[in-house]
């Protein structure tokens, strides 16, 4: 039952992130005017490039799809109290898994079978990659943030080694790439959205499943309990090790699926374009969404729009492409600061209960 107390809580959880985003937009405006650009022209350009027309909004959705998937790689383990930032590495490993299957003889099968096999391979590769981080955390107490970030570099080196070596298509001269997957096996476009591929559907489905898994199942409840207090979870007999590995596997498999989507829908082959910063932007999405998968899908669309506006800022306003990273950094810092505001602002405080504490559930 909703009472005014939880209503205010929900309002707080919605208002503070929005206020943080608006405040970082203001800070970004200050930054732009220091850099000599008119901040209002910048806002207008971002809005136009991201949401201005059906065409550009489709472009935004196109970028939001991998962000939804990679953000889960941080958001799911966060419920267990782990800060995992191996999104980029898991995405790359997923891409490697997808291309290995896509180039194997399985591509003689109908496209739907091949795509399914590619997705499974990508999820397995990405999942095992992050599960390894979880295992190191649980069995060796290795700091998961540092190990997952190191594994990003290792995954990228592995990809470069493959596309420069055994997998290299000799016709790719300037940009070493693998052989392309057959056109028939590439992911198609969503009906009525001629520019958006099915990766968006994957992303939304993954976010919804993740939400129900965490909020509505015993498995999710166990994970949240262990995230809240590991000692209490151990005393309650929860298998913390298995939970860690399972959550990390699921997290990695989402990011891995993003790698498959990038290969099967966007690039058609594996090369260094695979690490297009979706992994790092995914971390930001997860933090802005406060690790809530449904919120992550909405934040991914917002942030996807900002990413989509990068090239317009460069062309129209002569701002370097790094401007978008500065903006991402500002958003991240402001959002982290906003964490300290929860429970401190008067308007969101629950009214002092006039009844005995036992009956607060009935509301005021």
């Amino acid at each position, binding site marked *: 039952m909703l009472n005014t107390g939880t209503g205010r809580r929900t309002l707080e959880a919605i208002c503070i992130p929005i206020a943080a985003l608006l405040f970082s937009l203001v800070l970004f405006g200050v930054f732009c005017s220091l850099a000599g650009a008119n901040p209002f022209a910048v806002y207008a350009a971002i809005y136009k490039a991201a949401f201005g027309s059906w065409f550009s909004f489709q472009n935004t959705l196109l970028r939001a799809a991998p962000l939804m998937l990679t953000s889960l790689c941080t958001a799911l383990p966060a419920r267990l109290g782990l800060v995992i930032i191996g999104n980029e590495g898991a995405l790359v490993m997923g891409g490697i898994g997808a291309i290995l299957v896509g180039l194997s003889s399985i591509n003689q099968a109908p496209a739907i079978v091949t795509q399914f096999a590619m997705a499974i391979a990508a999820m397995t590769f990405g999942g095992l990659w992050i599960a390894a981080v979880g295992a190191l955390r649980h069995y060796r*107490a290795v*700091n998961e943030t540092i190990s997952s970030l190191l594994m990003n570099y290792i995954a990228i080196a592995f990809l470069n080694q493959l596309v420069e070596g055994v997998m290299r298509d000799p016709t790719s001269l300037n940009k070493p790439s693998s052989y392309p997957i057959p056109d028939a096996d590439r992911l198609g476009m969503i009906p009525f959205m001629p520019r958006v591929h099915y990766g968006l559907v994957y992303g939304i489905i993954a976010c919804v499943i993740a939400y129900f898994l965490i909020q509505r199942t015993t498995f999710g409840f166990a994970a949240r309990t262990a995230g809240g207090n590991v000692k209490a979870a151990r005393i309650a007999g929860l298998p913390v090790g298995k939970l860690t590995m399972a959550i990390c596997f699921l997290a990695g498999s989402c990011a891995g699926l993003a790698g498959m989507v990038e290969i099967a829908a966007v690039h058609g082959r594996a090369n260094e374009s695979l690490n297009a910063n979706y992994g790092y932007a995914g971390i930001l999405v997860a933090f802005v969404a406060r690790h809530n998968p449904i919120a992550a899908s909405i934040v991914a669309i917002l942030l996807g729009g900002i990413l989509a506006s990068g090239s317009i800022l460069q062309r129209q306003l002569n701002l370097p492409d790094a401007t978008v990273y500065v903006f991402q950094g500002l958003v991240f810092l402001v959002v982290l600061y906003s964490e*300290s505001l929860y429970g401190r602002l008067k308007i969101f405080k629950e009214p002092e209960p006039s009844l005995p504490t036992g009956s607060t559930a009935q509301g005021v």
Partner: protein
Amino acid sequence: MAAEAIGWWGVPLAIIGGTLRGSAPFLFVSLGECLTEKSGKINLGLEGTLLMGAMSAYGVSYLTQGTVGSAIAPWLGVLVAGIAGLGMGFIHAWLSQQPKVNDVAVGIAMIIFGSGLAFYLGKPFIQPSAPNLPAIGLADWSSMPQVRQAFQVNLLFVIGIAIAPLMSWFFKTTRWGLFIRAVGDSPEAALAMGISIRKVRMLCIMAGSFLAGIGGAYLSLYYPGSWSERISSGQGLMAVALVIFARWNPIQCLWASFLFGGAQAIAPALQAIGIDGGYYLFNASPYILTLLIMIFTCSPKRTITGAPGALGATN
């Protein structure tokens, strides 16, 4: 001719040379992180600080060469890199000490913010060449140019080597060192001693970032000696892991930095003599080494000896 004359000996020589050239960024960042973590906070964002330091040092060296001459300009760059580090450190210190704010997350944000800002401001400095820091030849008596080249060091590196024992002495014997250890090990005890935890941590994080900024200046002004967006390949991050391996001991940070500098030199050394089969994998060797070291030094059963007691605690 001479290059062929030393043949396979070129590999260990190149690794020694690479160690002498490439260890300094690890050294500065790990000493900075050591100081930060001694006060009980983690700063994962030193990668961003390193990039800001590299960019500002190069930019200042390039812009001031006309007015102060090309001998002083790079040293001015080093100073400004340190100041840029102080600024980044201030943001981290202030933000990570707010209630409910996780210092690891702030570090990730600072990596994104610092690298974004460095790439943004550094755009105009990618093409031009700035005066670099001079090298000191330790083996100028040798007749072989490879040997002379391998044994060149930089004054900044020597300063870094001197800071390590100095910091160790500082922690062990001085009053301020005791304050920092108290804040990092047992904030309650520090409070009872009348020390301001907030101020000590603020100063430690800022001083640590100052050192990391100087590490960045070394990258852009000495080795590799130019500014590009790929100048740092995770050294700032590896140095954070290195502090765990060094058990929060500045002297051991020194040895660990040598190890990492050497590991980094393996791929180019092998490539120089014609082995480039696994170039990218060898290039990843510092990361793999860091990961292996963490796997072997960490244990779930006990906390690592030397770890500051309050490290990783929430505000």
